[in-house]
């Protein structure tokens, strides 16, 4: 059933349809530890649904999805909670709870006791410390007691990242993390995503419509010595090899491969992305 136990996420021939709209059309792919997947696609191409199906928020009509080697397609919601605790998700608009402060939002994943148990790893770090640490990671420690509606769009996204990484998940899903942000803020967000990926070697799936985001993910890495984002050394770099691109069109995967392969693709839909991205 499981050819390789190290697979973090596997889609096998997954299809999903809402009324007349096809969200996912026979999608198959696998994510292994340390890999980065950049999912490109136009609005409504099924990118967001891909992430929701991956953690069982939406059940597919057919096909199989397994998360950390466990088939989740028919799991009950209660049984999914333990698996989801090992996944961090950044929703499109951040998905922060308006009624809770920033600190409470970031602490939320830790408040569910099973998460505390699974990540206890001996040291009794208090929830408060971990929340501060996570907010320091996104450089928003000063916003602890603010409410999400007091923050800018970019800051909300950063708090969303802090909440996604606070439980130190093995897989991180980012849903259009840069959508609607100005280019400078967008690059800050991608830099944070790189930092998380390279510091903890987390498997990452990033859904985006900006090719630049994917280009950054594939070619840059976080240098923990000087705290800077820098271009990865050419040739044989780990992140270059382990960053793969998926391109989606109307629910179908029309491309899967590395960045050089993407750039060499002759598919007009795929090329359109490269042009938009390059502009």
């Amino acid at each position, binding site marked *: 059933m499981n050819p390789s136990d190290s697979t973090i996420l596997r889609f096998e021939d997954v299809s999903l349809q809402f009324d007349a709209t096809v969200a996912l059309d026979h999608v198959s792919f696998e994510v292994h530890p340390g890999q980065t997947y950049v999912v490109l696609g136009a609005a409504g191409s099924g990118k967001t649904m891909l992430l*929701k199906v991956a953690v069982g*928020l939406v059940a597919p009509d057919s096909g199989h999805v397994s998360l950390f080697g466990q088939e989740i397609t028919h799991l009950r919601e209660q049984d999914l*909670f333990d698996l989801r605790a090992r*996944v961090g998700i950044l*929703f499109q608009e951040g*998905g922060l*709870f*308006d009624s809770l402060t920033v600190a409470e939002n970031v602490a*939320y994943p830790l408040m569910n006791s099973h998460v505390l148990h699974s990540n206890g790893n001996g040291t009794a770090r208090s929830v408060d410390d971990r929340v501060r640490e996570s907010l320091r990671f996104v450089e928003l420690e000063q916003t602890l007691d603010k409410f999400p509606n007091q923050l800018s769009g970019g800051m909300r996204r950063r708090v969303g990242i802090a*909440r996604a990484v606070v439980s130190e998940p093995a897989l991180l899903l980012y849903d259009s993390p840069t959508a609607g942000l100005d280019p400078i803020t967008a690059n800050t967000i991608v830099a944070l995503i790189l930092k998380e990926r390279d510091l903890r070697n987390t498997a990452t799936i990033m859904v985006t419509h900006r090719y630049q985001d994917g280009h950054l993910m594939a070619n840059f890495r976080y240098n923990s010595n000087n705290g800077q984002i820098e271009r990865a050394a050419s040739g044989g770099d780990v992140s270059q090899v382990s960053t793969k691109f998926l391109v989606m069109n109307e629910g179908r995967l029309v491309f899967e491969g590395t960045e050089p392969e993407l750039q060499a693709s002759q598919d007009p839909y795929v090329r359109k992305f490269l042009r938009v991205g390059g502009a």
Partner: protein
Amino acid sequence: MFDLLKPLVAAFQDFVLLSIRAVRNIFRGPHYADDIFVQMDVIGVGSLFIVSLIGLFSGIVMALQMARALTQYGAQGQVGSIVAITLVRELGPVLTAVLVAGRNASGIASELGSMKVTEQIDAMRALGTDPIQKLVTPRLIALAVVLPLLTIISDFIGLIGGYFIASTMLGLTYSEYWTTAWQALEYNDLAQGLLKPFVFAVIIALVGCFYGMRTTGGTQGVGRATTSAVVTSSVWIFVLTAFITYVWNIIFVKQ
């Protein structure tokens, strides 16, 4: 023909499933006591003033209307009993529930609807919380507790309103009014007057949550959900009060 009915039947099925899960969650953990108390405060304490005000005026209006009719038969001394019976059996529960539906079914639907369209409900599920347990069940419990209490307060203030008219316009004494009002009520009426708000509370909470949780289509969708929640819960309140009264009369009232 059947295709037209399909969405309706599907929606009803979703409603029933939501109701079953919300009720089942009452009996199993985790319980969010804080949320229950917050909702009791928002719905109960928040509605207290308006519910009292409407109760007062419905008592006054009943007394004024009945006074004229009763005077024709020289029976104005019975105004207390008529006000008591109409308020406790029917007007108190229905008016209170319709007010709370307007105030809180809308509030619940718009709050949950906004959470739905901003992916907070998905975030909740992704972070290991059952949104029905966290959002629906506390509102259901809070309403089921506070709506009967609000109804009792509204009934009582309505009786005071009736007394105000009886004493100022009909010249009834304190004991004339309150004795007839008290004697007119049977346990049967009180039970009916408490069963109704309990049922209405369940309807308001579940309908408000149902429309909130299935909101789609951004902020416009939130508006639609809110309107639907108020209209649907208000209609059901009137349908159910007729139904409960009918069944109650068959079972408990000896012909």
